[in-house]
C-alpha cells in the first residue's frame, strides 16, 4: 500500500512537472468563422492550430501534435507538409475572394506538397513515396497513387511558409489526385488528429452528412516549423475545414432530403405577371434573408469548449459571425457576445460544457456586408473536338481598373496529354470587348518547363505572366492525346481522364500572405477502345483457325477414295491385311471357278 501510494505520488509529480513544461512551449487554438454569402449560402471556416516545441517533437513528446502524423513525418524526413482534400467549386463571381486567400485550399480531389530533407533528388523521391504510402493509410485516401507520373517539382509556384535552417537541403515535391473522392472516411481520421477529437468544442459540428453535401468544401492539414529570431523553434500544425453550405438544402431533414413540390397554397406567387392564374405561378423571390441556426444547418449543436484551448493564456473567441450589427442574433443562455468595432463582426464565447446554438431569424437589413472583389478570376477548359487533338484555354480576368496582376500559372499535366508549347497564344480583351491577338511572349515574363516522358512523368509547366488592368487574357495551347495500352485504361475509361487543376499564385499582393487560385479539374476524353473487342477478335480468330486448320488437316490425312478402293486401303492394318489375304484367296477360288465355267 505504501509503495503504491509513493508511486502514485511520484507519477502525479511527474505529470505536473511535465505538463508545466509542455504548457510553456505548446498551445492550442480553435476558431469557427461563419459568414453568410449571397444566394443563401453560408461559409463556415473552422481552424485548429497548435504549437509544439521542436525539442518535444524531436523527442516524440506529443501533446497536441498527433502522434500518428508526427511519426510519419519523422520517418519520411518531412520538414513541411501541406495536404488538401477538396470537393466542389468555389463560385468566385458570387462569393468573392476565397477564404484564407486560397492558401488553405487545394485542387479538386487530393493535393499534397511537402519539403523533404534529403541529400539528393533520388533519395527525396524515395522518402516522398514512403510519405505518400503512409499518408494513404492514415487518411484512407489513395495517396499511394502519387507516383512519378503524378509528382512534380515546382520551382516558383510554392515557397516554404515555415522557417527552415537549411533550405538548400530541402526538396519540394508536389502531387495531385484530381479524381480522388473525398468522403466520410477522410473526415474520420482528420477528426482523430484533433486534440479534442470531435468530442468537445467547435469540432463537434462536423458531420459527414452535411460536410459532403456542401457546395464547396476543403479540408487541409499544414505542418511547418516556426522559429523566433533567437532560435527557439516550434512545430505548428494547422488543420482547417472550409465549407459553403446551401442554407435551404442543409435545413432539409436527413430522413427526407429530397425536395418535394410545395402545395399550391404554400406558393408565394408574383401576381403582377399577366399569366398569373389559378394554375400558373411565377414564384416570388424572398426579400428577406432566410432564417437559419447552427442546429438546423449543421444538424447538431456545438458542445462546450475544447478544454485544451488557450492554455497559454491568450483566450480567443471560439465562434465569430460576420453579419451587420443591426441584425438580430439569438444565442444560448450562458454564452457571451462581443461586437467588434468594424460594425460587421461579432464573436461568441460558448459556456464550457453546455450546448451552444446560434440562430438568426428571418429579417430584412439593408446594410450589406462589404464584399471584396477577387484579385483575379480564372477558368480553364478543354476545347477542340476529335479523338486525336485538343486544346487548353485558360481565361484570366482582371477586375481592377488600375493595377495589373502578376502571377504564376502552374500546370501539372498527365503524360497522356502532350502539350505543344510553341502553340501558346494569347488574346487580350479590354472592357470594350474587342479581342486583340498578341504574342504570348509579350505577357509571359518567364517559363519553367519540364517535358513529359511517356509512362514516366507528366508535363510540368510554370508560366509567369501579367494581365493588364481592366482586361481579360485568354491563353490557349494545343495538345495531342496519347493512345494508351489496353491494360492502362481504368475500369471506367469512358468517363474520361482527370486532369489536375491549374494552380495560380498571385505575386504582387501587399500583405505577406500568399494568394492562390485553383481552377477546376478537367475531364479529358481519350480514344477508348471497345473493351469487348479483344474477346471478339480472339473468338473470330479461333474460329478462322479452327476452320482453316480443320480443312487443311482433313486434306492432309484423309484420302477420298471409292468404296472398292476403301477395302484395299483397309489392308494396312494387321487385321485388315489378314482380312485382305482371306478375300484374295476367296477371290482366287471364285475366279478359278468362273474360269472353269
Amino acid at each position, binding site marked *: 500500500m505504501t509503495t503504491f501510494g509513493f508511486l502514485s505520488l511520484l507519477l502525479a509529480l511527474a505529470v505536473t512537472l511535465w505538463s508545466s513544461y509542455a504548457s510553456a512551449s505548446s498551445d492550442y487554438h480553435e476558431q469557427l468563422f461563419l459568414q453568410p454569402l449571397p444566394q443563401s449560402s453560408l461559409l463556415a471556416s473552422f481552424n485548429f492550430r497548435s504549437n509544439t516545441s521542436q525539442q518535444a517533437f524531436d523527442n516524440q513528446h506529443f501533446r497536441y501534435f498527433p502522434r500518428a502524423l508526427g511519426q510519419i513525418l519523422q520517418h519520411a524526413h518531412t520538414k513541411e507538409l501541406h495536404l488538401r482534400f477538396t*470537393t466542389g467549386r468555389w463560385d468566385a463571381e458570387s462569393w468573392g475572394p476565397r477564404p484564407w486567400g486560397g492558401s488553405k485550399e487545394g485542387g479538386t480531389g487530393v493535393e499534397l506538397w511537402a519539403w523533404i530533407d534529403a541529400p*539528393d*533528388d*533520388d533519395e527525396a*523521391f524515395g522518402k516522398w*513515396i*514512403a510519405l505518400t*504510402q*503512409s499518408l*494513404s*493509410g*492514415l487518411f*484512407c*485516401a*489513395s495517396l*499511394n*497513387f502519387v507516383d512519378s507520373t503524378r509528382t512534380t*517539382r*515546382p*520551382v516558383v509556384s510554392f515557397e516554404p511558409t515555415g522557417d527552415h535552417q537549411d533550405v538548400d537541403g530541402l526538396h519540394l515535391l508536389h502531387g495531385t489526385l484530381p479524381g*480522388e*473522392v*473525398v*468522403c*466520410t*472516411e477522410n473526415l*474520420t*481520421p482528420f477528426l482523430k488528429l484533433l486534440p479534442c477529437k470531435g468530442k468537445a468544442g467547435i469540432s463537434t459540428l462536423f*458531420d*459527414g*452528412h*452535411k*460536410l*459532403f*453535401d456542401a457546395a464547396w468544401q476543403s479540408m487541409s492539414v499544414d505542418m511547418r516549423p516556426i522559429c523566433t529570431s533567437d532560435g527557439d523553434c516550434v512545430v505548428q500544425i494547422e488543420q482547417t475545414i472550409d465549407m459553403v453550405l446551401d442554407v435551404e438544402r442543409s435545413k432539409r431533414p*436527413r*430522413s427526407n*432530403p*429530397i425536395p418535394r413540390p410545395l402545395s399550391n397554397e404554400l406558393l408565394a406567387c408574383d401576381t403582377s405577371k399577366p399569366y398569373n392564374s389559378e394554375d400558373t405561378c411565377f414564384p416570388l423571390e424572398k426579400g428577406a434573408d432566410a432564417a437559419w441556426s447552427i442546429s438546423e444547418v449543421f444538424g447538431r449543436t456545438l458542445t462546450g469548449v475544447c478544454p485544451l484551448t488557450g492554455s497559454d493564456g491568450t483566450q480567443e473567441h471560439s465562434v465569430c459571425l460576420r453579419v451587420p450589427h443591426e441584425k438580430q442574433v439569438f444565442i444560448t443562455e450562458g454564452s457571451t457576445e462581443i461586437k467588434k468595432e468594424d460594425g460587421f463582426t461579432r464573436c461568441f464565447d460558448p459556456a464550457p460544457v453546455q450546448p451552444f446554438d446560434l440562430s438568426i431569424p428571418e429579417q430584412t437589413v439593408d446594410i450589406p456586408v462589404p464584399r471584396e472583389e477577387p484579385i483575379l478570376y480564372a477558368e480553364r477548359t478543354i476545347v477542340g473536338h476529335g479523338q486525336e487533338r485538343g486544346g487548353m484555354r485558360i481565361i484570366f480576368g482582371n477586375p481592377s481598373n488600375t493595377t495589373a496582376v502578376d502571377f504564376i500559372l502552374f500546370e501539372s499535366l498527365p503524360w497522356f496529354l502532350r502539350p505543344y*508549347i510553341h502553340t501558346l497564344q494569347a488574346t487580350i480583351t479590354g472592357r470594350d470587348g474587342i479581342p486583340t491577338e498578341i504574342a504570348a*511572349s509579350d505577357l509571359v515574363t*518567364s*517559363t*519553367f*518547363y*519540364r517535358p513529359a516522358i511517356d509512362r514516366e512523368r507528366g508535363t*510540368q509547366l*510554370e508560366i509567369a505572366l501579367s494581365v493588364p488592368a481592366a482586361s481579360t487574357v485568354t491563353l490557349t495551347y494545343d495538345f495531342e492525346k496519347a493512345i494508351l495500352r489496353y491494360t492502362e485504361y*481504368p*475500369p*471506367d475509361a469512358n468517363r474520361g481522364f482527370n486532369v489536375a487543376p491549374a494552380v495560380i499564385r498571385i505575386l504582387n499582393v501587399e500583405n505577406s500572405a500568399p494568394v492562390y487560385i485553383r481552377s477546376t479539374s478537367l475531364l479529358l476524353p481519350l480514344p477508348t477502345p471497345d*473493351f469487348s473487342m479483344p474477346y471478339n477478335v480472339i473468338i473470330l480468330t479461333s474460329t478462322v483457325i479452327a476452320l482453316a486448320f480443320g480443312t487443311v488437316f482433313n486434306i492432309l490425312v484423309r484420302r477420298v477414295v471409292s468404296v472398292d478402293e476403301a477395302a484395299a486401303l483397309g489392308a494396312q492394318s494387321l487385321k485388315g491385311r489378314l482380312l485382305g489375304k482371306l478375300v484374295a484367296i476367296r477371290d482366287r477360288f471364285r475366279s478359278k471357278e468362273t474360269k472353269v465355267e
Partner: protein
Amino acid sequence: MISFFRLLQAFCLLLLVSFVSAEHTSNWAVLVSTSRFWFNYRHLANVLSLYRTVKRLGIPDSQIILMLPDDMACNPRNAFPGTVYSNADRAVDLYGDNIEVDYRGYEVTVENFIRLLTDRLDEDVPRSKRLGSDAGSNVLVYMTGHGGDQFLKFQDAEEIGAWDLADAFGQMWEKKRYHELLFMIDTCQANTMYTHFYSPNIVATGSSELDQSSYSHHADNDVGVAVIDRWTYYVLEFLETQVTSANSKLNLGDLFDSYDESKIHSQPGVRWDLFPGGEQEGRLRTVVDFFGNVQNVEVENANATEPGSLKEDLAEIARLAEKWRKRGEEYSAILGNSTQSHSENKHSSSVGLAPKKTVGPTKMAEDNSWGKRLVGLSVVGACTAVWVAGSVLTSLFSGRWEAEPEWPSRGCAL
C-alpha cells in the same frame, strides 16, 4: 480445504491452457466488394452491412480490411449524401460517422487482393492496408460482386478465378496466416468459387449453385436502385436478430440451418470437407469465432528449449547475427583495407555509384534564334550537297552499266 481449492485452481488452469491451444487468439475480417458503378449500390451495401456487424461484435477497425471499389456515399447521384442504406426503411446509416476504408476506388484489384492475403506488399505499405493475421487468427473473408462459373469480376475489368483464390488461401496456410477461415461469397454461381480450395481449416459458404443467379432483395425508390442482395439480407437477418452480443453461443450450424431456399431464391452451399472433423466439428464453431473478437492469450513456457520455442528462436537469431558479423569482417578483410575507417568506406561506395541526375524543370530562355537558323540552314545545305553528289554519281554509274538491274527501285516498288 485450501489445498483442495489450489488443486481445483490448477486443474482449471490446465483445462484453460489445453483449451487455449485449440482456440484462436485474434480475429480478422476481409470484406470485399468488387463492383464499381452506381447501379451496383447493393454490393457496397452488402459489404458495409457486414462491416457494421463485425464492428458491432467487437472486431476493431485496425483488424478489418474494407475494400470498396466505388464511392456510393458521396456519389453525386446519391440523394442522401454521406449515407449508404441496406434497407428501404433507412433505419441504419451504414456509412455513419466513423468509417475506415482501407482500399478504395482503383485500388481494389485482383492483384492487390491477392497481395493482401499473401502479404506480398511493398515495405512502405502502412499497417492499415495489411492483413496482419498469424497462425492464431480466425479470418473472415466476405466477397460480393458479379461472378460466373469459377470466376468473380473485379470492377468490370478483370476477374479472379476459383484457382487463384484457392492458391491464395493455400499460400496463406503455408505462411501460417490463419488458424481457421470462414469464406463467404454472394454472387451468381457463388458455390463454384470455393470448389478448388485445398488448404485445411476452411469453412466455405456461397449463395448459389452452378448455373443459378443470386438475386437482389429489394429496391429503395428514393435511392433509385436495389439496396441489398437476398442471401446477404437473410444472413444479416440471422446475425442481427439472433447474434445480439459477443457472448452469443450460436454456432455456424445454426447460421447455415437458417438458410431458407424459398426466401433466398437460390440454393446456398456449404463446404465442410476441409475442416478437421468435417461437418460435425465445423458446425460447433460459434458464429462469434469469426464475426466477433476474442483476446485469448497463448501462454508459452518461457523456459522451454524444444524446437520452435522462444529460447530456441532467440539462440538461432543470435547465431545468425554472429555469422553475418563474421562474414562482414571477412569481406572487409578481403577488400584489403581493413584499416580504412567506416566513413571512408561509405564515401568510396557512394563515389562508385554513378549519381543518377534527374532532370528538373528548366527555365526557357529567349536565345539568339538567328544562330539556330544558321545551324539549321547549314545542315540542310550539307544534306542537299550529299544528295546532289549521290545523284551525280548514280547517273555516272548507271550510264556505265545500263544493263544492271535497278535493285533499289524494285525494292521500293515492293
